[in-house]
């Protein structure tokens, strides 16, 4: 495992439908993501960047090819094993935040800890700490509709990070936010990446946001068109 990257994709394809209506969302991609990297997936809509991210997060299963996560072949796993991988190693941040609307910020952050079987008190402590870490210590009992978009996304980041994942997957995390808030969220992600060494893969269509990462992978028509280091980024892979 020492010489194998955290993520290794070989010839990964994801096809939907069949015959004339066949959609090649991913059409054979090879990608290595070393531990501690910060990647941005870019490309026009329909280029396959979101499908690639979902595949990395085991939310979607390739129709062909090999995907190894921490040295484990994921493509042959069932729904339960994939859910266990997500539970133990992965955190997600979505464009639409995807918070439970009728639960408080604290309850939303506690959610993944519950599935890990932590005692209620420890859940509460860790969730409060995670909210503190994203600067929302005073908002723990607010419901999502009582928070601004940026605050909601920070709750979502706290929920992703509270389990200390190896991999953080972010699907257009700033897509619903204004520029100032977007920058705040990106600074938060960058700081968490730097402080905790979490591997981050982010989908974005904004160059400004992609520039926070170390590498930009450009998708077109289900293939990787370019894979380049961000100028000036330290520690690029």
């Amino acid at each position, binding site marked *: 495992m020492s010489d194998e990257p955290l993520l290794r994709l070989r010839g990964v394809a994801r096809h939907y439908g069949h015959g004339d209506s066949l959609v090649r969302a991913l059409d054979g991609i090879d990608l290595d993501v070393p531990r501690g990297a910060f990647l941005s997936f870019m490309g026009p809509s329909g280029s396959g960047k979101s499908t690639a991210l979902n595949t990395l997060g085991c*939310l979607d299963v390739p129709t062909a090819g090999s995907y190894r996560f921490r040295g484990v072949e994921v493509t042959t796993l069932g729904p339960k094993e994939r859910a266990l991988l*997500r*539970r*133990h190693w992965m955190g997600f941040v979505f464009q639409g935040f*995807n*918070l439970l609307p009728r639960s408080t910020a604290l309850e939303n952050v506690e959610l993944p800890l519950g599935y890990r079987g932590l005692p209620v008190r420890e859940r509460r402590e860790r969730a409060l700490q995670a909210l503190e870490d994203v600067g929302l210590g005073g908002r723990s009992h607010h419901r999502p509709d009582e928070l601004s978009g940026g605050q909601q996304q920070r709750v979502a980041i706290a*929920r992703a990070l509270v389990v200390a994942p190896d991999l953080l997957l972010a699907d257009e995390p700033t897509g619903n936010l204004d520029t100032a808030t977007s920058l705040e969220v990106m600074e938060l992600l960058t700081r968490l990446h730097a402080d905790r060494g979490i591997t981050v893969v982010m989908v974005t269509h904004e160059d400004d946001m992609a520039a926070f990462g170390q590498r930009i992978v450009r998708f077109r028509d289900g293939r990787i068109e370019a894979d380049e280091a961000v100028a000036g980024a330290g520690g690029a892979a």
Partner: protein
Amino acid sequence: MRLWLDALRLAITQLARNASRTALTSLGVLIGVAAVIAMVGLGQGATAAIEQDLSSLGVNLLFVEAGVRRGPRASLPAEPLDLADADAIGRQVRHVEAVAPVVAAEAQAAFGGRTWDTGLQGTTAAWLGVLGRELAAGRVFTDAEDRGGAPVCVLGPTVVEEVLGTADPLGAELRLGALTCTVIGVLTPEGENTFGMDQDDLVLLPIRAVQRRVVGSTAVSQILVSADDPEHMSAVARDVDALMRQRRHVTSDSAVDFSVRDTRELAEMLGSITTVLTTFLAAVAGVSLLVGGIGIMNIMLVSVTERTREIGIRLAVGALPSDVRLQFLVEAAVLAVFGGVLGVIVGIGGTAIGATVLEVPVVVDPRIVLLSVGFSAMVGVVFGWWPASRAARMEPMEALRHL
């Protein structure tokens, strides 16, 4: 364990959020469980009431009737009993305390322009002692009146009230159909029996008077026999049976054309009728529990669809498909048990009210209560299984895209 507690807490939170939906959905189970408990409770109450009534008749009473009994109701016609049978039992069977032959008839009682339809009981003076009835006033027929079929009668209090009103009953001349008789006595009131029959609405006459002047035959419909001691009951029953076989020339068991029963047998027979009725009513009530279960399934399917996005979020943050299934199963079970527990309360209340109206004792069988709650939990799990499995089978990405 923690998993279950979490699921339980989640289910309660979720059900509390949709309070009116929860209430309406559990109403189906509530009605089902309440109906089962009330039906079974009232059935058992009725059985207990019958047993009480019959035991008040006395434990040392036998009924001899002509006819071949086939089950509780069917009876084939047979040579009727007569007064000689009653005499023979009185004279030949040991440990017999009293024998009262009875012939029953219907008649209209009339006095001073007032009429009342009532039942005539042609019998002897022994009837009072055998059934434990007493006189409030006057006297019962003498032996001479008995044998001669004299036109004298003893009235139940209801007949006195309805026909004679405030007139002095003793010595009154009462018309009973074609027969005119002199009132010589009045019974003490006894009230209604289990079936709501007024035991005071009757006129006692010497049996021969009824045979000759009302029914026009020498048949006796029933012979009541009391033993001198409850311990001698089985011996008396056996001897009466043997005597009647001899008198009726019965040679084999299959040709027996009469019956000798005691109050316990009567209780069992009536008890079996109420048991059949109770089972039937409980089964009908059980169907409503089933309908309640379908209501739960329906609302759980709606809930799963509504919460597709929530399911997607949960799967994304680490829920296993089995966690999702457990969540919805527990929710369905809590819904059903909630209805079940309320149903028990309503059912017991209903039993109490029904028992008061029907004048039967309140009987609540704890086994039926446990069974109903357990069954409602099962209904929740069974009818929650399909919706919960649908939730568990969702693909996380598709669920997250759901609006």
